[in-house]
């Protein structure tokens, strides 16, 4: 049985650098303007998968599974350029508005469809939702153990895995049976960059939906090279229960969103002159803040 590693990944808006262009006049964030990227910690997870494959002398299969709109297939190709073997896109309008519970339900159906598997890896958290919940919730739905805050997957065999975890004030090394879900922390090594041979090999990989949009005829290419076909699964393919999907399947609801607007404080600006500094120190002493 080939060692199967499923990497769960998400395409997210790049929230790390919300510059002036992304802020609209009314103070709201214009998500459409933010570049869509491969969630950083999911890339760390992919790197761990690639290292495990190397540890097993190449005798492993890395499958990237992502749930998102049609364009999320971009991250499947990105993963293939770095060494993933194939990818599946879980996409359906019915998934819109999913919170972490509905998302983990949907993802777990996708993982079950890929059984038997040995490891499920994912990033610790996504930079848009920031919850770090989907990993553990997916593990619970799959009925498998979980190891969070993983910094390094040190060794792997058919039956066991040893993982080093990075905790608040130190490290912990744990051993678990297989299958197991592991969430990878950003203290883990950065993902290797694209491999030019893999890029050339996989750059025409497309999903069914993407093929419909393409002007170029991919039919012949995809027939002769079936690994270029990225499969799409919708709610029916997953035999999903409608009440567990999307908004309906989400117990958490957003009541209100407020934009963080910068309130300029009445700030007193001082120079670095001796006079100004001494003045400040005296003021702090006089008001009993220091001294």
């Amino acid at each position, binding site marked *: 049985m080939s060692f199967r590693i499923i990497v769960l990944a998400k395409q997210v808006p790049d929230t790390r650098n919300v510059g002036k262009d992304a802020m609209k006049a009314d103070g709201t964030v214009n998500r459409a303007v933010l570049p869509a990227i491969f969630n950083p910690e999911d890339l760390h997870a992919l790197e761990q998968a690639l290292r495990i494959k190397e540890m097993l002398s190449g005798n492993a299969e890395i499958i990237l599974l992502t749930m998102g709109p049609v364009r999320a297939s971009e991250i499947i190709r990105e993963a293939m350029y770095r060494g993933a073997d194939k990818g599946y896109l879980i996409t359906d309008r019915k998934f819109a508005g999913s919170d972490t519970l509905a998302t*983990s339900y949907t993802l777990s159906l996708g993982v079950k469809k890929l059984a038997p598997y040995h490891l499920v890896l994912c990033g610790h958290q996504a930079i848009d939702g*920031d919850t770090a*919940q989907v990993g553990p919730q997916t593990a619970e739905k799959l009925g498998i153990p979980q190891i969070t805050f993983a910094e390094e997957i040190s060794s792997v065999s058919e039956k066991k895995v040893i993982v080093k975890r990075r905790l*608040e004030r130190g*490290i912990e090394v744990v051993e678990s*049976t297989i299958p197991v879900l592991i969430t990878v922390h950003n203290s883990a090594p950065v993902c290797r960059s694209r491999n030019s041979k893999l890029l050339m090999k996989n750059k025409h990989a497309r999903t069914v939906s993407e093929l419909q949009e393409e002007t170029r005829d991919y039919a012949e290419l995809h027939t002769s090279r079936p690994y270029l076909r990225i499969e799409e699964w919708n709610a029916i393919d997953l035999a999903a229960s409608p009440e567990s999907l999307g908004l309906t399947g989400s117990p958490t609801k957003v009541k209100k969103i407020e934009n963080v607007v910068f309130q300029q*404080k009445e700030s007193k600006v*001082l120079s670095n002159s001796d006079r100004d500094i001494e003045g400040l*120190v*005296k003021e702090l002493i006089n008001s009993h803040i220091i001294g």
Partner: protein
Amino acid sequence: MKNVFVYCEIDEGVVADVSLELLSKGRKLANELNCKLEALVIGSKLNDVDKQISPFGVDVIHIADDEKLFPYLTLPHTTITLDVFKQEQPIVALFGATSVGRDLAPRIASSLKCGLTADCTSLVIGDHTENKTQTVYKNLLYQIRPAFGGNIIATIINPETLPQMATVREGVMKKEIVSKTYKSEIKKVNIGKLLTDADFVTKIIERHIEKQKINIKNSQIIIAGGYGVGSKENFNLLYELADLIGAEVGASRAAVDAGYVEHDRQVGQTGVTVRPKLYIACGISGAVQHRAGMDQSAQIISINSDPDAPIHNIADFTIIGEVQDIIPKMIKYYKSNTK
């Protein structure tokens, strides 16, 4: 039944600060909701845990005490917590947003199919009217937190599911003793019939956890250094001023990542939250994640050679200049004005 629950973390028999802070918040929520406050403690060597917990106004303490339960492992803690929650049917369940809480709470929420909001910065009781159906929900827990990289504040509610779960980071809530003689009922959890071999498929082989040497949280004055301080050696200036005025030294994540200072001193979203009467930010640009950990300081002084650093927007006093230039002057004038 139908009370506010707080899962309390234990390290070598000592209840974690974040759990005590959550008990204090839990007590206030329970008062508003007219119900009781219950604590759940799972670990080892828990003989005097009730003495640590009761003063925070805890009505019932559920204790699961066994050497197999420390250090924390996902599966046994999940099994026990689910069993207690299924019996006691909490309406609110709070966990610290720590490596334990962030591992355990989502697994519990998934099993109970209820809502969980992570890293809440505020918890408030309020009502909600569903626009489509005009259904009115009373006394819901508003779970308030930053999102989208810190650029928005969201209020989340779970109108249809229980318990309403939330995780909160250390330092966000305040610890408050209700009464040193508060009486709690103790309920021992019988783990013998709950746990099986299946709960122990994951084993800890090694553990190197340092004891917390420094805790800057309670200091009234904090002098924090950022990447702009420039080096580990330059931080000595901050330590010198701190010694002089009775302050603690803090740092931004950038300074910790650069190796200038230890992680225990980190202030911010992935460090500690502090609320001193005076916060002096030295060479800190003031990213959203840092501000989240200190913007509740009573007075803020920012020292930065960059006049456009965002930190200046929340400062009461802004000094444009070099840290190596200004701190020695502050030291000099403090000494000369406090003979």
